[in-house]
């Protein structure tokens, strides 16, 4: 279906001139009117809007409800990062828990796309609304694990990956996780 946006098609040169002039005049009137309206600008440093929790700004590493580091250094965030600003080294704690020996985000490179958060299987890496990270020395924009770690669970406060994963850690042994049967007795002949 064709939609006519112009409801009245002007006819003849005089009509066109008249319509054109009218339209231009209307434009000038509108802009003139705006000059006397109060601006709608929120002036930033004086006025700080409270941003929604899902705003994508500075990245944090959250903790699980038991206070442990959630990050298992699975490399998914660094793998998905389109600008390669995340680097880390995974390691093993004495109880078998996998963790990041070091974890580094270069915020000078980060484009705050949120793909890392989307990829994170343990809800560890999250983008927070904190956006005021401007620095004069670019090296201060390279955040290490201790700068990134926060002491809360962020947007997903209840999840603890190690309660679901089948691997043995201090949180649970074989069969000690959610939705797990006790370990199979290999030596039994019972059906």
């Amino acid at each position: 279906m064709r939609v006519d946006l112009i409801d009245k098609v002007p006819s003849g040169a005089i009509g066109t001139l008249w319509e054109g002039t009218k339209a231009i005049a209307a434009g000038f009137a509108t802009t003139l009117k705006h000059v006397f309206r109060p601006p709608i600008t929120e002036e930033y440093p004086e006025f700080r809007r409270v941003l929604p929790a899902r705003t994508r700004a500075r990245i944090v590493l959250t903790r699980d409800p038991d206070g442990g580091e959630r990050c298992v250094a699975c490399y998914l965030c660094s793998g998905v990062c389109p600008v390669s600003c995340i680097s880390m080294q995974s390691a093993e704690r004495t109880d078998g828990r996998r963790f990041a020996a070091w974890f580094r985000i270069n915020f000078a490179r980060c484009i705050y796309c949120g793909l890392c958060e989307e990829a994170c299987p343990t809800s560890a890496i999250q983008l927070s609304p904190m956006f005021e990270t401007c620095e004069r020395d670019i090296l201060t924009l390279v955040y290490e694990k201790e700068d990134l770690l926060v002491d809360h669970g962020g947007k997903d406060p209840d999840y603890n990956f190690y309660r679901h994963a089948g691997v043995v850690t201090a949180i649970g042994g074989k069969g000690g996780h959610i939705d797990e049967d006790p370990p199979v007795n290999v030596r039994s002949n019972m059906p």
Partner: protein
Amino acid sequence: MPKLTIDDREIEVAGGTKVIEAAARLGIMIPRFCYHPALGSVGACRVCAVKVLEGPVKGVQMSCMLDAADGMQVSTTDREAVEFRRYVIEWLMMNHPHDCPVCDEGGHCLLQDMTVSGGHGIRRFPGKKRTYPDQDLGPLVQHEMNRCIHCYRCTRFYQQFCGYRDLGALSIGNRTYFGRVASGRLESPFSGNLSDICPTGVFTDKPSRYFGRRWDYQRTPTICINCSLGCHAVTSVRYRQVARQEARMSAAVNGWFLCDRGRYGFFYASLPGRPRQAAVKGETTTMDEAIAHARSRLETLPPDAIAVNGSARSSLEVLAMTERAARLKGWRGPAFFADAGAAHNVKTAIARLEEGLAVSLGEIGQADFILVVGADPINEAPMLALALRQAVQKGAGILVLDPRPVCLPFGFMHVPTAPEALGAVLGRLVKKSIGPAGLDGPAARFYASLPDEPATGQEVLARAAGLLAASRRPVIVCGTGIVASALVGLAADAALLLTAAQKKAGLFYILPEANSFASGLLAPPESTTDRILKAVVDGDVKALVFVENDPFATSPDRELLERALAKVELLVVLDYLDTPVSRRAHVFLPTQTLYESGGIFINQEGRAQYSAAAFAGGAPILETGGSDHPPRVYGTGLPGADPQPAGQIMAQLAGEPMASEIGARPEYFGGSTVSELAELPDVEAFPEEGQRLSPKNLPADRFKSVLPPSSAAESDELEIILTERTFGSEDLSSYSACLETREDEPLAGLHRRDAESLGIREGDGIAIRTGNTTLEFAVRVYDNMASGVMVVPRLQRLPWQGLGKRVRRQDIRKA
């Protein structure tokens, strides 16, 4: 040749080919878990389902179990088949734990790929997941049984393919468990392949545990240099650290697998203590200054007073440059071998590997009778044992003639023979298995020269002779380590004789080290390390240059070495290892490993193979960051990237102008006196399977071997056989910490008769006094070894250099 249609595309395959294989040839990758080209089909996982539209059996079929038939029409994309595969994956995932983020397989996991590509995402089954207890399988393989999908690949590989029995399937039904009877180190020296072969994360690589993901690794096709076979590997590097090595498929060499020595023998490249800075008299300095210093010192000496030593662990580029430098400057050497015996064995082997006779490791699996002479495959070249086993699986008979208590993962005939009697037994056997008919000229003369009196009580030999007589593709495998020089030629002549007797005979040598072939090609005939050391002691040589050579590990005469090092005026050492000699060097120049510089290695059959550089060098981040995050500094250049390719350093030491570019081959080999090398292709165009080098002319000494006189007389001396072990003998792999627990106990082996005559029982300690040192061993008594010899493992941590070649019985005492 059945012709079938898969997904509307026609293909003709050999009879007996499975549909899954035919599809792979068309580039159609049918999902699979249990099927593996090396292991064959069992039809356990049910994920390779395809729909047969036209053929002997119609409907959904397992493509790995189905022989391709003429006129067959197969659809891999049929709705029914796709649904079937989707459900299979869903039920395999029913009990699979939710632990991909902490699983090392994640990123190269077949199950993960199939699950994602099959579209399964949410577990619909509301029940609980089955769990299993795990086992500690030693330092190389990590066990996590929860992830198992029961494809049986592990046991098929471990038991069927390799012939080891300590890992297998236990229990039944839903409780089927893959592991050992009890926790403990895996016995197989091929156990590392479990982490490659497992389609999910039940068996993962322990040394690289939690280090990185496949996608983060810089993966480079390389060549394993931990023995002379030159197996193909893929090296993974991350954060300037060589982290992992996997097998790379190669039909001509290693097939799909790699032994644990090769798989884990790379740790020397990223050791924290690896010397990365040049040093003059112990003071670290820049490369340029150290080279300039060494050069100015060398120039003050007459060329004849300078001697160069290399080793067979260097690449062809390094060896050729070393040889060129010495030749152009008139220096002595280079010596690539410890003594004349070793040099002669290798040079003979190279000369006798004529075209048509030499077989590759891959071809060994096709042989129908294999005669192993003076070789201990599992210890000297582990992958050879695996190739022999494949031949055995196909019905080949194997006879081992060796004084040592050889142990192989398959049934074989063993005739324990004293080293000097090896030739006679070989001759008798060959003579017995073929008749004089059809032989003429030199072959007939050689046949006649062989001894023909039957050995007493050796019905094993008679049986073997029968098998050899019946065989059509026999192969003679000959070691070069413990045998007398004459035997190397004799083995070749024996193979030639078998060829003359209308057999398709093959010849396969085991050489001592990775690049022994190249060393043998390039080494000047009369220069060996022991001669050079003697010349130092005599005062003729004043400066020694060691190029990637640790004489403390290779030289059998420790005393001579110590005297020479004490007397030498200038000791220049080029190496990437922290060795005793590099610590004593007046000028130390760090060099690059194979992973940094790349290089050509020529394996024992003369196959020149190029191993690409895996990374640019530099100290690992683990080291520079002190296992914490990398240092917070900006800068260009890599820390610890001083080392240069040894060839480049040699060129600078010699003041050659063409130093700079590795890989500019004509520069390296153009002036070479070895014509074979001049034909090598450029490294960029190196064929993946390498290029075989063979002697330009037929060897002059064909059929001219003379049997060494055998002295069967009982002597009052025991011959000492220093034998290599799978783990702990080879120089580079002895730097791998994870292999330390795999090393054997240093036991001295004695035949029961010798032990009884000495009054020694199994487990006793003995002390051997030689010269002014005393060495102590525990004793193991064998029935299946030659008498009159004592077998001592040549382990790096053992001071075997003091032992000498023979020991008098009265010098052996119970400790």
